[in-house]
C-alpha cells in the first residue's frame, strides 16, 4: 500500500474490470437495436421490459467508470474528455436520451409517441456502443494531443491539455477506431439477443434471436479478428526510465510478455465463440449470455491490461510521444490512490448484492402473462 507503482497497477486493474463489466452490460444497448424487425407488439413489450430492468446497471457502470478514472488518473479525465469533446458529448447525449426513454415510452401524455422514444433507444444502441468502442480505440491507436503543464502559468492561455481542433471528430473518422467501434456494436447485438433468449419465455422470439446471434456473432467475429490483427501490428509508446520510446508491435510484445494475460485472452475468445455457436445451434440452451458475457469481460480486461501495463502509454500522442499518458504520469498521488484503495474494499459487497438481486429478479423468465399483469411497465 505504500508503493505508488503497485497502486497505479491496482487502479488500472480496477479500471479494466469496470471497462470489462461495461462492455458486457452493453447487451442492453445491443438489445435496444433489436426491438424492431419482425417482433410482435407483445414480444417487443417483453423485450423492452427485459432490458428496462437492467438499463440502470449499464448506465451506472459508465458513470462509475468515469468517476474511477477521475479519481485515479485525472490527467486522462482532463485530456481525453476535454480534448475529444465531440466524441464524449455524443456518447453522453446517447445515454441521456436512453435514461428517460424507458420510463416515458408508454406513458400517457408522453407528447412525442412511443416510436419516438424507441428511436432514441435505437440511437443509444447504435451511437453509444460504436462510439464507446471508438473512445477505447484511442487507447491503442492514439490521438492528436499535447500536454504542457506549464501552460497553467500563462493567464492568457492557461489550458494544459490541447487536442486537434476537430476535438474528437478525427477519432471517429479513424478507420482503426471504427473497426473496434463496429466490433463492439455487433458484439452488443449478439449479447442482447442472447439475453433475450435467457430472460424471455417465448419460443418464436427465441428462434429469431438465435438467428440474430449467429448473424451478428459472425460479423462480430470477422471484425474482431481484423481488429486483433491490426492491433498486433500497431506500434505504440513505452516509457523507459521516464523517457517516451516509440516501439513497433508493442501490444503483441505485451501480450507475449504477459503469458497469463494471453491465456485469459484466449480463454475469453473461446468462451465467446462457444456461447455464440452453441446458442445458434442448440435449441433450448439459454446460457449463451453467461459464456459469451464472461468471455467478453475476460477479453476486454486483457485489452485494457496490455494497453496500460509494462510502461505502455495507454493514450499515445501521435503529435508528441512525450505527452502520451501512462498510468505512471497521469495518476493521482500516493495518498489518494491509497485512500481510494481502502474504499475499493467495498466493491465485493457491491458485486454480491448486484448478483443476489439479479438472481432474484431473473429467477423466472418474463412471459406474456406477466406483462399482462404487471402494472409498472416500460
Amino acid at each position, binding site marked *: 500500500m505504500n508503493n505508488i507503482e503497485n497502486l497505479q497497477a491496482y487502479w488500472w486493474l480496477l479500471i479494466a474490470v469496470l471497462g470489462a463489466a461495461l462492455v458486457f452490460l452493453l447487451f442492453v444497448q445491443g438489445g435496444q437495436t433489436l426491438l424492431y424487425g419482425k417482433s410482435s407488439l407483445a414480444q417487443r413489450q417483453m423485450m423492452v421490459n427485459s432490458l428496462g430492468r437492467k438499463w440502470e446497471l449499464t*448506465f451506472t457502470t459508465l458513470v462509475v467508470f468515469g468517476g474511477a478514472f477521475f479519481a485515479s488518473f485525472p490527467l486522462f479525465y*482532463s485530456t481525453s474528455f476535454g480534448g475529444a*469533446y465531440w466524441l464524449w458529448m455524443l456518447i453522453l447525449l446517447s445515454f441521456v436520451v436512453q435514461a428517460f426513454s424507458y420510463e416515458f415510452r408508454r406513458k400517457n401524455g408522453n407528447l412525442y409517441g412511443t416510436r419516438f422514444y424507441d428511436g432514441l433507444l435505437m440511437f443509444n444502441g447504435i451511437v453509444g456502443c460504436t462510439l464507446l468502442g471508438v473512445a477505447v480505440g484511442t487507447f491503442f491507436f492514439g490521438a492528436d494531443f499535447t500536454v504542457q503543464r506549464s501552460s497553467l502559468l500563462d493567464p492568457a492561455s*492557461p489550458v494544459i491539455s490541447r487536442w486537434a481542433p476537430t476535438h474528437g471528430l478525427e477519432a471517429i473518422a479513424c478507420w482503426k477506431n471504427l473497426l473496434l467501434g463496429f466490433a463492439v456494436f455487433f458484439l452488443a447485438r449478439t449479447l442482447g439477443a442472447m439475453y433475450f433468449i435467457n430472460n424471455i419465455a417465448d419460443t418464436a422470439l427465441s428462434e429469431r434471436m438465435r438467428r440474430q446471434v449467429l448473424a451478428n456473432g459472425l460479423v462480430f467475429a470477422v471484425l474482431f479478428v481484423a481488429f486483433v490483427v491490426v492491433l498486433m501490428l500497431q506500434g505504440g509508446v513505452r516509457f523507459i526510465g521516464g523517457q517516451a520510446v516509440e516501439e513497433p508491435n508493442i501490444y503483441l510484445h505485451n501480450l507475449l510478455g504477459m503469458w497469463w494475460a494471453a491465456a485469459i485472452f484466449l480463454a475469453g475468445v473461446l468462451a465467446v465463440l462457444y456461447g455464440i455457436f452453441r446458442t445458434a445451434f442448440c435449441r433450448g440452451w439459454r446460457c449463451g449470455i453467461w459464456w459469451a458475457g464472461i468471455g467478453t469481460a475476460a477479453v476486454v480486461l486483457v485489452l485494457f491490461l496490455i494497453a496500460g501495463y509494462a510502461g505502455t502509454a495507454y493514450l499515445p500522442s501521435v503529435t508528441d510521444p512525450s505527452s502520451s499518458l501512462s498510468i505512471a504520469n497521469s495518476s493521482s*498521488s500516493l495518498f489518494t490512490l491509497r*485512500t481510494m484503495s481502502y474504499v475499493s474494499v467495498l466493491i465485493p459487497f*457491491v458485486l454480491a448484492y448486484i448478483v443476489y438481486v439479479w438472481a432474484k429478479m431473473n429467477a423466472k423468465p418474463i412471459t406474456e402473462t406477466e406483462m399482462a399483469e404487471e402494472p*409498472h411497465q416500460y
Partner: protein
Amino acid sequence: MNDLLGVVDWSRAQFAMTAMYHWLFVPLTIGLSLIVAIMESIYVRTGDTRWRNITKFWMTLFGINFACGVATGIILEFEFGTNWSNYSWFVGDIFGAPLAIEGIVAFFMEATFVAVMFFGWNKVSRRFHLASTWLTAIGVSLSALWILVANAWMQNPVGMTFDPAQMRNVMTDFWAVAFNPVSMNKFFHAVTSGWALAGAFVLAVSCWLLARGRNADAARKSIRIGGWVGTAGLLLTCWTGHGSAVQVARVQPMKLAAMEGLYTGGNGVPLVAFGILNSPEAIAAGADPMKFSIDIPYGLSLMIDGSTTSYVPGIEDLLAGRERSGGEQPAMAPPYSQRMEMGVLARQALTRYSQAREAGDSTAMAEAEADISTYFPNFGYGYLESPDDAVPPVGLTFYSFHVMVLGAGLLVVLFATLLFAAIRKPALLGYRWMHWLGFLSLVVVYLVSQAGWIVAEVGRQPWVIQNLMPTGAAISDISSASVQTTFWIFAVVFTGLLVAEISIMTRYISKASRSDIETAKHV
C-alpha cells in the same frame, strides 16, 4: 482572448443550465423516496392494502422523476472533464475521489434496488421489497452526500497541499475533505430541502385529488405523511441554512456581502429582510446601494456572530483588506490588489521552480518552493485583471438569497396550515382556497430551491476553487462555437424532457383522480 472569454461564459452557461435542470428533479427524488419508504413501511406493518396502493401511486411519480434526474446527472459529472479540463487536472487528485466513492457506494445501490422497488412486488418477499425501497432512499441520500462533499470542497478547499513538481493540488487529509464543515452543512441543507420540496409536491397533488372530489381518504393520508416530512424538512432546512450562512461568513465573506447587498460594513450590521438594489452604475457613483429596504436591526451581526455589536465587512471593506474577526474590530488582511500581486508572485515562483527543476538546481528549487508556500493561498488572484473581478454578480446573488429566505418563510406558513387542517380540522380540506394553498406551496418551493442553488453557485464567482482558481483558468481548450452548439442541444433535449415529464405526471395524476387510488392498479 475573446474566444477564451466566450468559452468561459458558454461553459459556465452550459454547466449552470445542466445543474439547474438536474436540481429540478433531484430534490423531489430525495424527498419522495423517503415518503414512499415511510408509506410502504406503514403497509408492511399494518398489512392494509390501501397503503400499498397509495405507495404504488407515489412510487410511479417517483419513477418518472427519478429517470429525469439520472438523465440530467450523467452530463454534470462528465462536464468536469469536457468543459473544465484544467480544473480536472489542477484538483482532480482531491475532487475525483468523492465522485468515485459516490459511484461505488451510492449509484450502484440505487440502480440495483430501484429495479426491485418497481418490479419486485411479486418477485420478492414483502420485507425484502421494503428493504429495497429504503435502500433506494438511502442510496439517493448517500449520492447527495458525496457530490456535496465535492462541491463544498470547491468552496472551502481543505485537506490538501500544492505539489509544484506536478503543478497540481494533492490530497493530504481525506477526513478533512469528507467532514469539511461546509460539506456537512450543505449535505443536511440540501437533503432536508429535498424533504421540504417533496412534502410540497405531495401536498399539491393531494390537494388536486381533493379538488377533483374523489380519493379524499388517500389524499388526507398522503397530506399527513407529506406534511410531516415537508414540515420537518423545512424546519431543518432553515436551521441548516443558518449554519450555512455562518460557514459562508467564515470562508466566503465576499459571497455573504453579495447576498446582503452590503457594500460598506460595520458594527451591529442589520439584516435586509426585503430590499431593492440601486443600479451598479449608481452604486459606483456613490449612491446608497439600497433604493429601498426593510431591515432587521443588528440582524446580520447577530446571525453571524451571535452579537449585536460584531463587525461584518462589506464588499468595499473586503477589497480593502478589512475582514471579519468575530469581534468588534475588523481583522486586517492584505487588500485584494495586494493579493493579486501575491498571486503573480506565486506564479513567478512556480516558473522559477520549474526552471530550477529542469536545470537540476536543488538550491533554487528550495528557494522557489518557499516562495510558493508563502504566496500560494492567493494563487488564483494572479489570474484576475482587477480587484473588482473578485466580486460576484451582486444583484443576482442578493435577489436569489432573498427569494430563498422569504419563500422559505411563506412555506412554513403554508405547510403549517395544511398540516393543521389535515390533522385537526379535516373539513377545511374541502375548501377550494385550501387546495390553492397546496398548489401555491409547490410553486414557491421550486422557486426557493432553484434560488438556493443560484446563491451557492453565483455567489462564489469568480472562483471555481475559492481563492485558488478562477473559473476562467479552469476551462478546456475548445472553441466557444462547440460549447454553444452543445449548450443548445442540451437545452432543447432537457426542455423537451421537462415538458414531457410534466405532461406525463399531470396526465397520470388526472387519470388517478378519476379512479379509486386505494383499490386501483396504477398504470
